[in-house]
């Protein structure tokens, strides 16, 4: 059978295309290497989901090789399986969007024109997008309605222009400690913003409302309230999803992709023919598949005759920090508020999305605040060491665990700023290391520009001010060059010039007539927010382009 569209990867990048085109009457097949889980399969089994990482591949079977650049500009090599360093985020129908926390921010207008707004940065490949915020705005709005984004629009220095005045879903219920946060911000003259979430607060869109399970990030949603690609899109359309289908090669002639080849769970090979192929296997794996799909027309990998595939890999820059609130310093009422489980914290600061330093305009970012994850084991493990960093056990440990978990709570913050694209951060292929299918694994070359850390530190200091003002103790933070594997983009950047980009403005490969890439690979710069709202929005945009193309 010849499908109209074959999509590789069923996550946030692939599913809007599947949803839109199958609902428009086109035949759509989605090839997904993971299994299918539905609401009734999801639970909060910490041992299976968090401790043994049920939803990501075992590194013995599938891994990456990681190269880190040191100060002497030498690469240090890490075999993922040996160092337990994983870049997998969620292999299942709906991809890692099932496991996201759903902190959703739009990119700001200046994020689309980083080069013109802030100028060149030495050692970084900063560019303007071939697309403006105004062009993407209708799709951000569409995501709010169809995937379901809840929140409250409040005016602040960097509120992006919106075509609607409200979110379609009211903000989620909040923990009482947010009041302490708001009043701390007020006295500091900081602008507190309720964080928008891809979670619906009540039954809508044929999904249940949030049950405030408190185990959101890293866990599948048992109610369907979380706007995963599966719950919000794939379960709402009749695109055919083939599970446990690992695509190892895209076949092409000189101008078109002709077939996707995949292995099923019994290692049997299959092939799918389609008019249009949409690649959305998440940033690193999409580049890997293209690089592994060499043929006589594309000897360096598909769509890679200009040697751009895999280049300019980016992550979210920044880091994380925390402060602890202890009963000793709180009233009875405050103690109760602090320990209330379920309700969200949901506060962000974006006042330094742009700021001045030595009279220079600097691109800053976002700070999200959230309670420490309720996972019990990591919270217990934090009590294992005393102030001198020596391990403790017995009664001393028992008492410490009890005290920490029942009379104190940690408030975290996460800083999101640009991870500047550079020549040193990219995806390659490690020819001699193969995965369980016998296919060469991806090599991830890591490097973060020093400015990323400088900006991250500036932002973290603002978060610390809020924690101090709120009365937190044991405040600490870490801004580093360690990449967050779950917020990853680039590798197939879009742009006008085929010499410096892989995709055109429509996310179609410059070098092929029918290959599109719709995961975060297309992003030439990442903005200073988590990426998923933008990934969803862009995929809806490309779906419109494809519909018009198929209709004509």
């Amino acid at each position, binding site marked *: 059978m010849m499908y109209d569209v074959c999509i590789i990867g069923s996550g946030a990048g692939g599913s809007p295309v599947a949803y839109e085109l199958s609902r428009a009457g086109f035949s759509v097949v989605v090839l997904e290497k993971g299994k299918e889980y539905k609401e009734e399969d999801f639970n909060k*089994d910490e041992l299976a989901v968090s401790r043994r990482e049920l939803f990501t591949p075992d590194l013995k079977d599938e891994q990456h090789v990681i190269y880190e650049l040191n100060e002497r500009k030498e690469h240090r090599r890490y075999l993922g399986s040996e160092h337990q360093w994983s870049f997998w985020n969620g292999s299942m129908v709906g991809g890692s969007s099932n496991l996201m926390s759903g902190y959703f921010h739009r990119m700001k207008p200046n994020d689309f024109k980083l080069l013109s707004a802030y100028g060149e940065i030495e050692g970084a490949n900063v560019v303007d997008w071939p697309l403006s915020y105004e062009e993407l705005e209708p799709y951000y709005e569409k995501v709010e309605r169809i995937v379901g984004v809840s929140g409250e629009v409040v005016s602040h220095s960097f509120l992006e222009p919106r075509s609607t005045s409200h979110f379609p879903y009211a903000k989620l219920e909040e923990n009482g400690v947010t009041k302490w946060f708001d009043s701390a911000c007020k006295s500091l003259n900081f602008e507190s913003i309720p964080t928008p979430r891809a979670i619906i607060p009540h039954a809508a869109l044929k999904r249940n409302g949030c049950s405030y399970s408190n185990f959101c990030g890293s866990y599948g949603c048992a109610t369907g309230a979380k706007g995963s690609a599966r719950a919000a899109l794939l379960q709402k359309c009749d695109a055919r999803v083939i599970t446990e289908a690992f695509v190892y090669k895209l076949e092409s002639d000189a101008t078109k992709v002709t077939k996707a080849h995949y292995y099923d769970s019994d290692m049997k090979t299959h092939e799918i023919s389609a008019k249009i192929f949409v690649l959305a296997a998440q940033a690193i794996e999409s580049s890997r598949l293209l690089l592994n799909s060499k043929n006589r027309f594309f000897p360096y990998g598909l769509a890679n005759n200009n040697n751009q595939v895999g280049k300019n890999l980016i992550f979210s820059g920044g880091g994380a920090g925390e402060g602890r609130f202890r009963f000793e310093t709180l009233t009875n009422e405050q103690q109760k508020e602090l320990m209330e489980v379920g309700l969200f914290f949901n506060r962000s600061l974006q006042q330094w999305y742009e700021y001045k330093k030595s009279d220079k305009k600097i691109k800053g970012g976002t700070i999200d605040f959230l309670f420490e994850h309720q996972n019990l*084991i990591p919270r217990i493990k934090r009590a*294992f060491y005393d102030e001198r960093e020596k391990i403790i056990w017995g009664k001393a*440990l028992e008492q410490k665990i*009890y005290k920490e978990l029942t009379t104190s709570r940690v408030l975290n913050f996460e800083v999101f700023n640009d991870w500047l694209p550079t020549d040193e951060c990219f995806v390659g292929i490690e020819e001699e290391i193969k995965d369980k299918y016998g296919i060469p694994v991806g090599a991830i070359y890591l490097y973060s520009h020093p400015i990323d850390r400088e900006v991250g530190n500036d932002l973290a200091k603002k978060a610390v001010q809020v924690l101090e003002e709120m009365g937190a103790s044991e405040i600490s933070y870490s801004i580093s060059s360690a990449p967050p594997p779950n917020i990853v983009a680039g590798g197939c950047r879009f742009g006008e010039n085929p010499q410096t980009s892989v995709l055109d403005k429509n996310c179609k490969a410059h070098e092929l007539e029918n290959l599109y890439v719709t995961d975060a690979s297309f992003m030439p710069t990442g903005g200073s927010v988590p990426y998923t709202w933008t990934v969803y929005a862009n995929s809806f945009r490309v779906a419109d382009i494809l519909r018009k193309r198929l209709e004509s």
Partner: protein
Amino acid sequence: MILNTRRNFFKKSFLGGAVLLFYNSSLYGAAEPLKTLTLAQVDLFPKVKELHVDTASYLLLILDHSRITASHKEFLRNGVQWLHEESLKLHGKLYYNLLEHERQEVLQEISEYGCGEPWIDALLTYSMEALCSDVVYGVNKKDAAQKWLGFCAGFPHPKRAYL
């Protein structure tokens, strides 16, 4: 259910085979890894016993898991050897033949070694996992940690074992 099948695993597992011990540069004898590890777990966190958590069964269950690497198992097994050899050095007896305060002395001693501290950390971690495990795994039948710590989140619970 799971535990029954996992018990068969014990026969072929590294926990089933004896660990050879050396004392004063010559072979002293052998020790039983599972017996040693579970006793050390109770010595390190007696609360597990008070809360009726079956840490021995949990070790059998978890150390058979595909995500636990061979090198980690080797590390745990080496720890059994250090523990007994340190016991022999300090008190002339195997760890499980010592009095409680002597065993604490040995634990204190090995915690000073570079590898000793992570070994204790690993054993404590498995105790905490057992303590927090869901009822479906059968080692924490009374939701011990949840009750002890007044923990009331984490719903829905698994209907079957996912590990």
